[in-house]
């Protein structure tokens, strides 16, 4: 009798929890019908909020500049950013909200999992999608989807090449989040490419979203295996714990991350000395002397009071790519979603922009950008590009 009751309680609790995630009655704004409407989706709350915020700020800065310079094809642009908390279900809800609002093209989503989910719906609607930072392969699996950043396999391959070609280590350990498509995607490509490089993988340890605070075992295994470099293809918030726990067991290999590591110095209260000699792949560096980057960094700092990260840069380039392609495809405020999509699909492969994440940035028809990766190293609490 008692057991049954407890079971019923647990089932009911589970139902309520799943139902609780469903409804998302965000405010419904009606759009100006005489403006070009670009929607965007990303997490501005939740664990990946720093990325959503960065994308939102970067994109809004670009939109502001474009509107001040006369808009796209002489038409002003309206921008609407919706929060998805990094959750696929909420991202699809946000997408529907934006569609009701009258979105003509989508910048987003920011994180991979939701991007794949929204990609499926957008493909059905023939909505043009440009993700600034969705790195999973599946983000651009349909021909209406493009991205500004590198894909996961590209990051894995480039990381392995960099480590091998620069002889950073002969014994490498990998710790990755097996419950995350981004992390495991990079991991798989990294392991594959490692076979062609002059190092061996001595430990490959996983963790999941349910147990991402204790890394003592994974680090101990890497240490026992004598790894001189630990590859960490996941986000900075967990990475800050890894660095701290490694210091706790007196283990100081080279740590190497991917673009998700960007932002680690912004964690409030984090001891930046722990991140010294941490390296990661990044397409953007705010300290560059390049004119376009300098202007972007100065304007961004004036607007938001802090230095932009690569997500802001990806979003900034993304909006300018949309502008360039929309001009080529002659998109107006009354162009239908399907016409926008068809026009942009062919225009994207013809444009070339000098952005903040790359010079002469171009796109293939498969949605992938072509640009060269860079490695950033943290020294004395600052990001610096490795030549």
């Amino acid at each position, binding site marked *: *009798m*008692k*057991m049954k*009751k407890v079971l*019923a*309680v647990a089932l*009911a*609790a589970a139902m*309520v*929890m799943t139902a*609780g995630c469903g409804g998302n009655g965000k405010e419904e704004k009606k759009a100006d019908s005489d403006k070009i409407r670009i929607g965007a989706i990303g*997490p*501005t*709350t*939740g*664990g990946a*909020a*720093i990325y959503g915020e960065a994308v939102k700020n970067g994109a809004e800065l670009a939109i502001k500049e474009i509107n001040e310079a006369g808009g796209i094809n002489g038409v002003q642009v309206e921008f609407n950013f919706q929060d998805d908390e990094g959750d696929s279900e909420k991202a699809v809800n946000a997408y529907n909200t934006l569609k009701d609002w009258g979105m003509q093209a989508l910048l987003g989503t920011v994180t991979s999992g939701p991007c794949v989910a929204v990609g499926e719906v957008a493909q059905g609607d023939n909505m043009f999608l440009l993700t600034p930072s969705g790195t999973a392969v599946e983000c651009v699996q349909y021909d209406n989807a493009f991205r500004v950043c590198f894909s996961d396999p590209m990051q894995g391959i480039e990381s392995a090449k960099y480590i091998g070609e620069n002889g950073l280590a002969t014994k490498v350990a990998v710790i990755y989040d*097996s419950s995350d498509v981004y992390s495991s995607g990079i991991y798989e490509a990294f392991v594959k490419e490692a076979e062609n490089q002059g190092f061996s993988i001595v430990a490959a*340890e*996983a*963790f*999941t979203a*349910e*147990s991402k*605070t*204790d890394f*003592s*075992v*994974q680090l*101990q*295994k890497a240490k*026992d295996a004598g790894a001189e470099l630990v590859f960490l293809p996941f986000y*900075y*918030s967990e990475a*800050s*714990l890894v660095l*701290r726990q490694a210091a*706790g*067991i*007196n283990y100081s290999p080279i740590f190497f991350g991917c673009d998700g590591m960007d932002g680690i110095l*912004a*964690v*409030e*209260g*984090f*001891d930046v000395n722990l991140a010294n000699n941490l390296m990661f792949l990044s397409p953007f560096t705010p300290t560059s002397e390049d004119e376009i980057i300098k202007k972007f960094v100065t304007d961004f700092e004036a607007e938001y009071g802090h230095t932009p990260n690569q997500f802001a840069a990806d979003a900034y380039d993304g909006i300018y790519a949309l502008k360039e392609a929309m001009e080529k495809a002659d998109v107006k405020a009354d162009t239908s979603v399907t016409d926008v999509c068809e026009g942009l699909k062919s225009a994207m492969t013809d444009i070339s922009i000098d952005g903040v994440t790359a010079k002469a940035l171009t796109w293939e028809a498969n949605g992938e950008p072509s640009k060269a990766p860079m490695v950033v190293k943290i020294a004395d609490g600052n990001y610096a590009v490795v030549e």
Partner: protein
Amino acid sequence: MSFVSYLINGVSLGSVYAIIALGYTMVYGIAKMLNFAHGDVIMIGAYVVLTAITSAGMPPAAAVLAAAVFCTVLGVTIERIAYRPLRNAASPLAVLITAIGVSYLLQNVALLIFGANTKSFTSVVPIPAVTLAGGQLTVSGETIMTIGACIVIMIGLTLFIKKTKAGQAMLAVSEDKGAAQLMGINVNGTIALTFAIGSALAAVAGVLLCSAYPTLTPYTGSMPGIKAFVAAVFGGIGSIPGAMIGGILLGIIEVFGKAYISSQMADAIVFSVLIVVLIVRPAGILGKNIQEKV
């Protein structure tokens, strides 16, 4: 040697589960309700300590005390507003669902006040790490402190319940609310006291959790809260020593599972062990199997 260091890691992780489980089991044991918001009270406690130290410049000990007071008030308020009106509801589900609601409420309020960005928590534990076997093994100060706190709390709670009048009242309420009331015990007051103690323990647990794993977000409490709930069931929910044993065993099983079987399967292993234990001993390791008379 690595076996011993894994064992130490397991005990460290387990001690954190144990200290959270103590609060869970205390409230369940007396009020017979699962307070799903317990993990989130922990998170609030940690934020209070962080704010008190960084913004108000309070010394760590005073900050912990402030957090304990704050959480006590919070716990009693939650009990008064959200749980007490439902105590005699037709279905025991009502109060459970409310607890889930309170959990979401606390998370979202924290999100609103403190934002979603991860904050790094500076350890407030003054004990230095101990190195053994010529520097090959390290036991962190946080682990020593957490285990110490667990033992003190466990003994303190047991003595409180056995030796004081208020404690005896709690026992009576847990056995039969109606009869206790007829005996002149203030049931509402007793349950409020239970929540007060449970929430103060949550504040202490929050500080130790965030000292051991120094990141703080509004979601910090939820997963450890669920793991600690499992630990409490594992040890026998309602049993105070059971919560401690359950927590530490859970930590050791998790770490050994990761170290010797598969780091990908760690949680699956933990929960499989739980299922086996519950099949063999449905009331948990130290739980009493009380037959319900029909």
